[in-house]
């Protein structure tokens, strides 16, 4: 577990350094790596939670990671929606500017 967390954090740092990942997301994924590493510490509790909820420790871990993945994908959807809106605004501005450039060029001729 701890090794897995460390691996995630290393990969994220590499990606961020090569500019494949923006700082904003790098922070998020570093937090995920840290959580995975820390999860090693709560392993003894997983069994107890499992007993309380009548679930096997494996099921508890799976459920926890599913929730984590769900939160991450919702966050990504929010980002995509924002990007869509920005793309739209940019495309509209582009069309208006292209038209103005046309007018200016015609006047210059």
């Amino acid at each position, binding site marked *: 577990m701890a090794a897995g967390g460390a691996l995630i954090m290393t990969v994220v740092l590499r990606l961020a350094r090569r500019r494949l990942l923006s700082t904003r997301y790098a922070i998020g994924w570093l937090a995920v790596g840290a959580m995975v590493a820390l999860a090693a510490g709560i392993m003894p509790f997983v069994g107890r939670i499992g007993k309380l909820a009548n679930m096997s420790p494996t099921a508890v871990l799976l459920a926890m990671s599913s929730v984590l993945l769900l939160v991450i994908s919702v966050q990504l959807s929010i980002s995509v929606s924002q990007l869509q809106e920005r*793309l*739209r605004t940019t*495309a*509209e501005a*582009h*069309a*208006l500017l*292209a*038209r103005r450039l046309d007018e200016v060029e015609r006047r210059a001729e």
Partner: protein
Amino acid sequence: MPNDPLVVIPAFNEQDCIGEVVREVTAAGHDCLVVDDGSTDHTLAVARATGVPVLALPINLGVGGALRAGFRYAVDHGYSIVVQVDADGQHVASHVDELIAALADDGAHLDMVVGSRFSGGSDYDISRVRRWCIRLLSWVIARSGHVELTDPTSGFRAIRSPLLDAFAADFPHHYLGDTFEAILVSARRGYRIGEVPVVMRPRQGGRPSADVMALGQAMARACTILLTGTTFDLPSRAPVDDPPASADRS
């Protein structure tokens, strides 16, 4: 001074109709702007060949995106009234004057006039499911916006300042957003909306934009809008008796 109104024609893959629609509008003496919504056919070339101004969106944004760009163009060029006309030839250019006349009526102080297929004598042929959906949307607008409109999804509308300036700043681009939601938000914000009966022709070519799947999607969208609230907002309408507030843009 610009020659109000500006007729804005959003066009997506309408190469067979767009030329004739532009000719009809300019023959009626109106200024005209075509917004090509990232068409993949020859719409852009046909529109440019007519000689009217053309905005070319680099990607397909949907009617709302094309319209917001058109509204922005109108405001920047000093127009205070825009009439939106479909590119498929359904709308008859002679009705543009009737929409404008309704806007100009001093007693009513209307900010938007919608051309309706269903009020008055026109018997526009439409599937029963679609008709029922439109009735439902009308009912929602009547309940929530307190405006009686028989054809809230009509794409044949006249819009004037200050609503035009508000739309140029923010306008929804998803399907039904440009019609149903825009009307709903405008009505809630105190803008006055009226309708006039118009006759619409069957589309002159191309394919209808809304098949059964799109209709289902649209209804799901309408329900989402009602559940989650509207996706955009407008500044409230100044009271009618006051002089119109100048739109502040920095």
